[in-house]
């Protein structure tokens, strides 16, 4: 017996992958499955990666232009709806 957890695109909610968890795994007993529980920072489908950019390219850009600070990067991503076009507008002004 397994429980299927669907990994979905942040934007269009298309299923991009699955995790089939053994139902009798003590590791997961009593836990509520979520992206946070599985430490999934971001998932976006191939089409949305073309539209909104990739998570890692923005992480690297933030490191170079702002600071190597993940929390700061996540706050910046939230402010810009995780979209590269909006992200670029904020980060390009950083000197």
């Amino acid at each position, binding site marked *: 017996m397994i429980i299927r957890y669907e990994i979905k695109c942040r934007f269009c909610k298309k299923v*991009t992958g699955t995790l089939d968890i053994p139902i009798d795994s003590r590791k997961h007993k009593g836990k509520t499955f979520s992206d946070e529980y599985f430490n999934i920072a*971001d998932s976006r489908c191939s089409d949305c990666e073309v539209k909104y950019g990739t998570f890692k390219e923005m992480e690297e850009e933030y490191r170079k232009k702002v600071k190597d600070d993940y929390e700061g990067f996540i706050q910046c991503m939230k402010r810009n709806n995780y979209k590269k076009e909006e992200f670029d507008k904020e980060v390009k002004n950083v000197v």
Partner: protein
Amino acid sequence: MIPREFVYDIEDETLGIPPQTLGASLGESSPGLQSSFDSPIQPQTVQSGNIIVPLIIPTGGHVRSGQTAYDTGTGFFLGDDGGTAKFSLGVGGSTSNNVTFDGTTLTVNGYVVQKVGTFGGDGSDGALSITSGTTNINASSAEVVIRNYTSISITSTGALGLTNPATNGTLLVLKSQGNVTLTSTATQLIDLSSDGAAGGAVAGPGAAADGNPGSDSSLYIDTSDHFGAAGLSTGAAAGGVAAGQQAFYTSRTNDLVRKYVALIPGSGGGSGRVNDGAGTSGVGGRGGGGLLIESAGALNFSGTINVNAAAGGNGTASDQTGGGGGGGGGMVVIIYETLTANTGTINKVGGAGGSSGNTTTGNGGGGGGASVSAGGAGGSTSASAIAGTAGFGTNTGAGGSGGGLNGGGGGAGGSHLIIQNTAFT
């Protein structure tokens, strides 16, 4: 009086005792049985059945086999010894092969064999399948991230990435009890680029910072510095030293009998230096991440894995600023049980050095190494503002040195190995 050598069988009606009465008789209501177990003078033999009442060993009593007394002979002893509850197991009196508790101190003499995991893991994270886009795992700044899958399938246009690496870089360990299928046509189906150690940070006037080493003390594979050095006011900053190739079975002092894989993330490049006054130098690039895949099933690998490093940052144009050194390429080891295909590509290129911010007094950072030969050196004095070139190739190589004044050195390069499992169980 019940005979001392006695077999209790509650279904044996030949005893002449009704079953319900016998059940009760195992408690204190049976004077005969109570008397039998309370008698300390003769051992009792129980050949079948269940003990359903507490057994309390009184003063002078014990349970033993092989050992004739506490810590005497070979076997075990559990009980009272001179008024103290004690336990011993193994060879009595041995300093290399026994366990004792003397009422105060628990002593283990000998080796403790600790099972640290089974090849292919325990499967507790289930079966992973990614078919579209990129799923990024948050490393949460951990130096080692381990996933235990029953199988791994990254197919179609799917990809797996890693974000938020540790300062010293992150090693991702993907264990699979079954098949590992890596056939996605994504540009990189596993992307650990820039997940190695952080580059040197930009510092104030007259200063620069070394890159970080791509390992903490528990992951060192040798004693060399693999990070790029900080930009200097005189001469070129050193590139990271190429990692020494380690034997698959180590002879490290504390690990004589342990089998392990020598694997670390790439090191960071050194930051460029600001000579004085205004302006900002380039930050050192992060190294590439480290990746270990254990497949206890079949490996089918035809895509691309990326553990490239990041380029160094550029100095600003306003003053004598050096470019940052590129990070060093990461390392990848894939161990499989059986092979379906191994036609994939592993990219582990060092990052290019950043360019200088000034055409006369700043210099580019060195490229990170990733090859047998060193990473590219930074731009020279006569051709300043030219970035170092990236390292490349199939094995570890030294990082390129900074191009001259102020340019940061590149991190040492990465390597990879894909091999059938013959060592781990």
